[in-house]
């Protein structure tokens, strides 16, 4: 899987993923999110357009970056347990979401829909729309 990070505006970082996102590389995606936020971005758009496959590890990656955009630290499952319960209500309540998903293909959409993740984060048809929405 390839990960490319761009910074279209001062606030927004776009993390574009290409290839297959699975248990072997999801931690790299979280790391890319960490770096983008450390560099000063406050919103993240994850561009899923070039992903040919996303396993359930992809959900962990997206969820972890969402926590990071809220200034919370996701703890690796290898290291311990961590509270995540309020992310759902936060995402539902917040009129100004900090994580946006863009351009998922059919197979990635299926994973997002089945897990219920597409109801928790805004999903946009393309990157441009996502960046515009994230720039708010």
């Amino acid at each position, binding site marked *: 899987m390839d990960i490319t990070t761009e910074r279209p505006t001062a606030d927004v970082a776009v993390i574009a993923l290409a290839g297959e996102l699975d248990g072997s590389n999801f931690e790299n995606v979280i790391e890319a999110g960490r770096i983008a936020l450390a560099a000063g971005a406050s919103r993240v758009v994850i561009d899923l357009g070039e992903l040919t496959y996303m*396993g359930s590890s992809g959900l962990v990656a997206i969820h972890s970056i969402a926590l990071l955009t809220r200034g919370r630290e996701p703890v690796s499952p290898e290291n311990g347990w961590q509270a995540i319960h309020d992310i759902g209500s936060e995402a539902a309540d917040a009129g100004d979401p900090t994580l946006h998903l863009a351009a998922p293909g059919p197979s990635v959409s299926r994973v997002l829909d089945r897990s219920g993740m597409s109801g928790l984060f805004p999903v946009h048809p393309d990157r441009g729309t996502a960046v515009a929405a994230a720039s708010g």
Partner: protein
Amino acid sequence: MATIALDRLLDPDAVRPLVDAARALLPGSTITICDADGAPLAGLEASATSAPSARRSIEVGGGPVGQVEVAADGALAANLDAVAALLASSLSLAASEAAARRSVTAAALDDLRELSLLSKLAETIGAAVDPDRIAGCVLETIARPLRADVAIVLPADRLDGGRVAAALGEPGDVERLVRDATPLLARLRAEDPVQGTCVDLDRLADPDGFPSIVAAVLRTTEATQGAIVLGRRWDAPPFEDIDRRLVASVASETAVALERASLQREIVNRRRLDDELAIGRRIQRSLMPRRFPSLPGWEIAAAYEAAREIGGDLYDAFLLRDQPGRLAFLVADVTGKGIPAAILMADTRALLHAAADWGPDPAETLARVNRILVEERAVSLFVTVALGLIDAASGDVAFASAGHDPVHVLRVDGSLTALEPTGRIIGLAADIGAHDVRLSVGPGDAIVAHTDGITEARSPQGAFYGEDRLRALLASLAGRPATEIVDTVIADVADFRAGSEPNDDLTLLVVRHLPA
């Protein structure tokens, strides 16, 4: 090549007979022999004369190392040139032979020095496992024999400076050497990306820098293991070829030692991970039912195949407590691996059992389990669960799914219904928002639940098995016994994989209403 002093090549006792022979040819002549700087050889000084003279140089390897001067008066002066040439060539021959003997001796000494250094090195780093400790041992062994004022080893990921693995010398000197070595190492790696290489630098213009540095990138055939750099201050002579050669030998031995250490560490880590995965597997296995409960009019079959690396599948079928004739079946998939995933799975299973006993609605059961896991256990792992409650007598089924892959109902007539998720994956949010689906499973119908290990099984070419292929195969198995459905699907997935290792756990559970 440096000029070798003539007096170190020619022993006066060996020279004197030649001089005497020359003097015999020219009785009364004055013969002087000087070194390259014009200083006469000890024991062969001659008194100054104003007589006519002839000069010839003494050469070794084409370079002058001294001079013969023959002076004589009168009739004999005609032979001056010939005698001087004869004597000079005799002395040149003697000096050349001495020089050759000397360089052989020097090379033998250098070899000896290298051997003793390497054997000492092998002795000190032989047992060390920690890379920084190996680096420290290397520096302690070689710094003094190589007369280095400062010595450092840089780890492989810090060749551009930053952290040293080991250092000898004053802290300020160490810092300066790291700074001076950085561009040198970059050049070394660019010039020769394959071989471990050394260079020494000429004296640098910067008086703060090290005038003489010898550096080597520590490389094996496998990888770069770091770099070793030695420096000498202004008041010491610069490094020479022999130092460069010694450092090259030391570098290759050090690189091998570091690689061995990193392999050992990898094996230890690997073993720890394997142990953890194995423990997780044992917990997981202990959660799987050894045999299914018997329920009149129904049959249950399942297959489970563990992947080596990841996977956290769980399946179960159990009779509900205090509710005769009611059976719960479930298939679940935990995101993650190892002990945390196994513990979450054990939790999930226990909670599902308890919650299913408590109420008739699978959606409510899943919601309760989610609340407990999210609010009290606070997991950062996710679980998909498909849960069905069967009334054995009527064939009525209540079903809910928290983000799990579609569960299929295979009718006896070959039609297929997919039960899609009715709520979010467990662990993602406080509320999974699930609802129940109610359906009737008649005699001959079968419920087929799987995990994504089936649909995401891959061919050697990388293609996914996919839901379409599963559905087509299931449709051809309408009315067949539960074990036959399970065996046929598992065999077809194995055919599709064509020998490649499963990359995720694979589970198939079939609950079938027996024909009347």
